């Protein structure tokens, strides 16, 4: 399937981009994160992050669909 991934903050710095389109066999955010974390050497274990699909928070075992927009969210620091 093809996913559109957005990166923010330290993940964007590490990935070297704010966005990528990736073909992947991963069917859940958990598997997709394992793949991109290895590719970009992200410093966070998945349990430090939250994940959103198409603009809403989802669980790590959420079933992904082709063309989903997937965002792994590093710990926030607003305010």
């Amino acid at each position, binding site marked *: 399937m093809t996913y559109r991934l*957005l990166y*923010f*903050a*330290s993940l964007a*710095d590490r990935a070297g981009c704010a966005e990528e389109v990736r073909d992947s066999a991963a069917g859940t955010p958990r598997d997709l994160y394992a793949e991109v974390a290895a590719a970009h050497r992200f*410093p966070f274990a998945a349990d430090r992050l*939250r994940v*959103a699909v198409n*603009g*809403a*928070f989802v669980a790590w075992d959420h079933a992904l669909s082709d063309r989903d927009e997937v*965002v792994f*969210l*590093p*710990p*926030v*620091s*607003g*305010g």
Partner: protein
Amino acid sequence: MSDKRFSLLETAIDVGVERRALDHAAAGAYASFEGWVRNHNDGRAVLRLDYQAYAPLAADEGEAILAEAAGRFAVREVRCVHRVGRLAIGDLAVWVGASADHRDAAFAACRWIIDEVKRRVPIWKNEHYADGESGWLHPDNTPVGSG
């Protein structure tokens, strides 16, 4: 001033305008909180900072927090505005306002909202230091690199 209770703003927050949404003839108490850009953090001199947001989700999550606050506390109205983009020392980064009949609820709602916004809304702070370095921060304002 917006119809939404929570908004992200790329330009300076005008508290005088935003606070009008809290006016209510039955409200005897108004509590507000503002986060200002400090010139220091964790022992380092800070020159400026950038806030980055995942805007659609930040807007939804902020709105959810304020709706929850309106139900949880005996308030007349609650609002929050968060800046994104580049800010200088002294700039207003976030404003929270709550009006209520009594001060207990106004204070409690205001405090709860800023805590939840800092904990849940997908916004990230990148500090630029006097020594030329910069870095994204964790929620406790320690650098991402350290943990």
